[in-house]
């Protein structure tokens, strides 16, 4: 992409022109925090506001991040020039070194370089993928789907017990055939294994996706493409607690820290299948719940205030959790029998269309 390279060069030119004018060089970076995140009611997406902050070279508190931003930008330009990709971890190692005449490193941990990359993304308004940076592979999928990726044809129904590992960049993937009625996304790997073993996707004619915790960009983009390109309904299946529900909201609306790319990652049509606190009564799971911790309750209180959790059904669930100080994991369903999830819970929910918005 010529455009991305140009933007990186412009960043350098701006800094150079400041230096030539004896001005303190700065980089303008949009603020990525709750205070600058807006929930757009119309598009049902989290978007970034217009607050930004300046990162200066000649400011004791900014000097190091300024240097780090320039180092990442220069490396990204090199990737563009050579047309190669690298992982977040590789980028960290490529840039980590000790500064001459000191015992200080350019970067100490990958946790320092990762946010700098996002800074650059929002600042230049480009995607990490466009910068040729890949995240670690996380998330798996199985179903009656045939795709083409880097020249290989892959049939998701013929990959044995493991399923297909979703790469961080799914932009260049093409679908050959998609035969499914809906997509079922779950937070937990264990639930995925259970449903896969029970041939749930064959019986129900659906696609199973596990995000293995908070959804990474690859699975989110993949879910969005299945939802928009093939008009498949998306159902999300997580633990009944504030963290599980937040995973759902990230898949649906986008996240606070990546609000600038909600448009490309969000799946506004997604619906929540379970678990809810109400399910505990409805499916007689009382004996299999867990006491909610202090942090779970605190998180629930925060989420009560989020614009995208204002629907009465969600307010009710959050308040129930706070009130009863209880949560339930997907495994709670196994308490009612190992096949309760596949044979009773999910079919009932889908049949009755018992979803949360």
């Amino acid at each position, binding site marked *: 992409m010529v455009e991305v390279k140009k933007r990186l060069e412009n960043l350098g030119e701006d800094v150079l022109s400041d230096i030539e004018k*004896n001005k303190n060089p700065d980089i303008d970076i949009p603020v990525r925090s709750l205070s600058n995140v807006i929930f757009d009611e119309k598009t049902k997406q989290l978007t970034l506001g217009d607050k930004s902050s300046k990162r200066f070279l000649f400011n004791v508190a900014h000097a190091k991040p300024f240097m780090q931003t320039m180092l990442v930008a220069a490396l990204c330009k090199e990737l563009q020039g050579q047309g190669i990709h690298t992982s977040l971890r590789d980028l960290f190692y490529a840039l980590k070194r000790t*500064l001459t005449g000191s015992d200080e490193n350019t970067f100490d941990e990958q946790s320092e370089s990762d946010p700098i990359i996002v800074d650059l993304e929002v600042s230049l308004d480009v995607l990490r993928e466009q910068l040729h940076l890949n995240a670690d592979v996380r998330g798996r999928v199985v179903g009656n789907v045939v795709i083409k990726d880097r020249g290989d044809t892959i049939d998701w129904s013929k990959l044995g017990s493991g399923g297909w590992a979703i790469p961080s960049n799914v932009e260049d993937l093409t679908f050959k055939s998609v035969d499914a009625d809906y997509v079922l996304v779950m937070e937990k790997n264990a639930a995925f294994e259970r449903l896969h073993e029970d041939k749930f996707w064959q019986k129900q004619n659906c696609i199973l996706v596990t995000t293995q915790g908070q959804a990474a960009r690859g699975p989110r983009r993949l879910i969005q493409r299945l939802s928009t390109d093939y008009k498949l309904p998306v159902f999300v299946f997580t633990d009944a607690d504030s963290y599980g529900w937040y995973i759902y909201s990230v898949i649906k609306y986008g996240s606070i820290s990546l609000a600038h790319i909600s448009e490309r990652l969000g799946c506004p049509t997604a619906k929540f299948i379970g678990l809810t606190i109400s399910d505990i009564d409805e499916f007689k799971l009382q004996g299999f719940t867990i006491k909610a911790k202090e942090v779970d309750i605190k998180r629930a209180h925060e989420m009560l205030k989020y614009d995208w959790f204002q629907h009465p059904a969600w307010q009710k669930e959050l308040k129930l959790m706070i009130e009863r100080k209880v949560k339930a994991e997907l495994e709670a369903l196994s308490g009612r029998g190992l096949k309760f999830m596949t044979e009773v819970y999910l079919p009932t929910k889908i049949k009755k269309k018992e979803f949360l918005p």
Partner: protein
Amino acid sequence: MVREITGEIMDEIAKTAEDMAKEQRAVSVSEFFEKNRHLLGYDNLTRALLTVVKELVDNSLDACEEARIIPRIWIEVKPNGTDRFRVMVKDNGPGMVDKQIPTTLGKLLYGSKFFRLRQSRGQQGIGGSGAILYAQLTTGKPTSIVSSTGNGKSSFYELMIDVKKNEPEIISHQLVSDGKIWHGMKIEMEVEGRYIESKRSIPEYIKQVAIGNPYADITFEGPNGKVEFPRGANILPPLSKEIMPHPHGIELGILRRMLKATKSRTIASFLTNDFSRIGAGTAKEICKLAGIDHKISPQRLEVADSEKLFRAMQKVKLVRPPTDCLSPLGKNLLIRGLQNQFKAEFFAAVTRQPEVYRGNPFQVEVAVAYGGELPQEGSVEVIRLSNRVPLIYQEGDCAITKSVVGTDWRRYGLTQSGRSLPVGPAVILVHLASVWVPFVSESKQAIASYPVIIKEIKLALQEIGRQLQHHVAGKRREEMQQRRREIFDRYLPEVAKAVADLTNKKPEPILEKLKNMVKKSTKAVVDGRGKEETGKSG
């Protein structure tokens, strides 16, 4: 519980009192000294040795200054058996007339200093003779004195003091016409004592003498070797003038003694001649106020009338006493004194205008040394001087210490917790010059806390504190800028290379330009501090 006093016991008490009265007799000053030597600074062996040295050195410095001679002083303290020392102090002063030597040194409370008011080191007439008395009390040995006034004759004396009569006892005396032309005095004695070299010690005292008298050249030979304190200036401060006492500064007892001693023939002339700030009109007004005849002879004044006179003197409005009797060290000598002893980076001194406490003029001076090689940790060193004499003991009772701890040094760049001495690499010197320094006791180690004295010291400390703060703040600013520059310098090569890569330029000129910005501390570099600025982007 109160015991009822019966008639029998009452008789017993009355009888005992009568017996005691019969046994009472005049106690001579020397006897008093013998019994109460702790009051004069001879309470333990360590302090006694210091007091001996101090009294002799004070006398030498006073004599030199009065004769306008730039002082050269030799001090020797040599051990002579267990807890025994031979102390020798020699000066280049005017020397003493042969006949006056025994009475000046062999009699307590004798001396030229008692009835006059003038800024000098000694003021009670106890110092030199006190040391001689201490020597004879502890070792039984006489003190030997050699002196000459530059007339080709040298006086040799061996003196003791007749304690009962308070009279000199001449053990030997020789006046030799040796033709040697010299002036000065050498006093040598053997005393009991103990020598230390810590905080309150002879070396510390001599160091402070050198600071307070930077025009003096001092050689000290102690048990552990010789130390030279070379002179730091060749100018003596101006000689202080003698003044008559101010009526508001005297006590009834002194007034009675002055009435007896005066040569004036009437009360009116006594008042105008023997006091400062009283003219003929005021003298008459005082007598009228006291209800006594201004023409009567002072010697004939009744005891009751002297009290009335005293009261009237306190009541009349008078001009404050003259202050030209004071001789402060001045800014230059104060700084010179500190520079001579401390390797610091910053020195400052302040001399206040004279003030008056109870009719006595006084003047406060403060100096400070900061940074450099002074110890970073621990409390600051406080040097207390009164009429250029270092005060070594009783710092807790002294108005100077109280003023130092009562000043908020945190605002002047030092650290301090509560009302304690500030902490930091600093020496604080306070000098109080006065015709009559109010000490809390006869050992002259602590200045009494008159509110006006405390106030003056504090004002001086605050003034010097502001100068110190200015220096410290400037230094801190410079250090901060230096640190900032170091931080920037570290990142610049990386930034320059990255910018060069992004713009397809060479990194060297960019780095050069950036380094120049830092080196010249351009506006962009100096201003670029503080938190991230948040604003709306376009």
